């Protein structure tokens, strides 16, 4: 192969590398921009703070999350709250842990619920879909 051909191949190779690197970084940026992982984490954090607050206060109460969460599955148990989409792999689920007072229980799961409520009754925290009469809480 003569010198000219070799340098042409090198130039093509270098252009290919630049295109691949640009494509790769654009893909990563687009993936992060498109995903709703930030929303899921924020919802999980909010619910965790709600659990801490409600378990601290005497009396019964109901609070409604001020956002449409119909696209997500929310799950609450005695140790953690989880927010995810139906087909999410483990890595994409947003999970936050909390510590309840010993006599408290927390439970509930919502799916396709546009309005989500967290209810405290005595020592029980229950995550559920809001009832129609519970508007403007």
């Amino acid at each position: 192969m003569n010198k000219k051909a070799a340098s042409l191949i090198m130039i093509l190779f270098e252009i290919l590398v630049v295109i691949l690197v640009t494509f790769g970084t654009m893909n990563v940026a687009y993936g992060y921009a498109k995903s709703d992982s930030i929303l899921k984490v924020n919802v999980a954090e909010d619910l965790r703070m709600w659990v801490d607050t409600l378990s601290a206060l005497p009396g019964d109460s109901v609070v409604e999350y001020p956002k449409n969460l119909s696209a997500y599955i929310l799950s609450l148990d005695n140790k953690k709250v989880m927010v995810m989409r139906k087909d999410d792999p483990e890595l994409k689920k947003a999970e936050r842990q909390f510590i309840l007072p010993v006599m408290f229980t927390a439970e509930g799961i919502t799916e396709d619920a546009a309005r989500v409520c967290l209810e405290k009754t005595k020592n029980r925290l229950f995550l559920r879909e809001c009832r129609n009469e519970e508007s403007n809480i």
Partner: protein
Amino acid sequence: MVKSLKLNKKGESGFEPAKKSIFWIFAGILITLLILAFVMVVVSYTNDLTSVPPKLKAELISLRFTNSPECFAYQDKETGRVYPGVIDLDKFSSDQLDQVCYSPDKKTGHYTYNFAFELENQPGKIIKTNNYFYHDEFTLSREVLVKDKSLFTKDVLKIYVQIKVP
């Protein structure tokens, strides 16, 4: 006098591919580092968007200590009424914390919030959660009433907050 070394044609043509190989080794390492740095910037940005101030988290967790009868709040035995902001001195103990109020897992609890408590008018008496190791990040203060038998006195509850011990 310094003699400059010159390669003949054979030497030069052999040197070209070697020069390119060395260039691409360094370029490959640099490109990998750049991509890693880019990913770290994006991850750091998303973490900033979702971060909650530690003081806010600590405030919300510590609400229970002065408001919940499972922790230190005074509850009238006859009426069942809870008095938020009134600390029952009989409940102000590490046992109450561990057994009822706030008990992180004994093995992994040092990764989460832990607290120590001191009443200003009773210095030296510090009660703490099970994974508190005096590694405070900040201190919260709450004005409270303290019920000791039938006597109510004004006091300040200091809450020493430990966020995480690796």
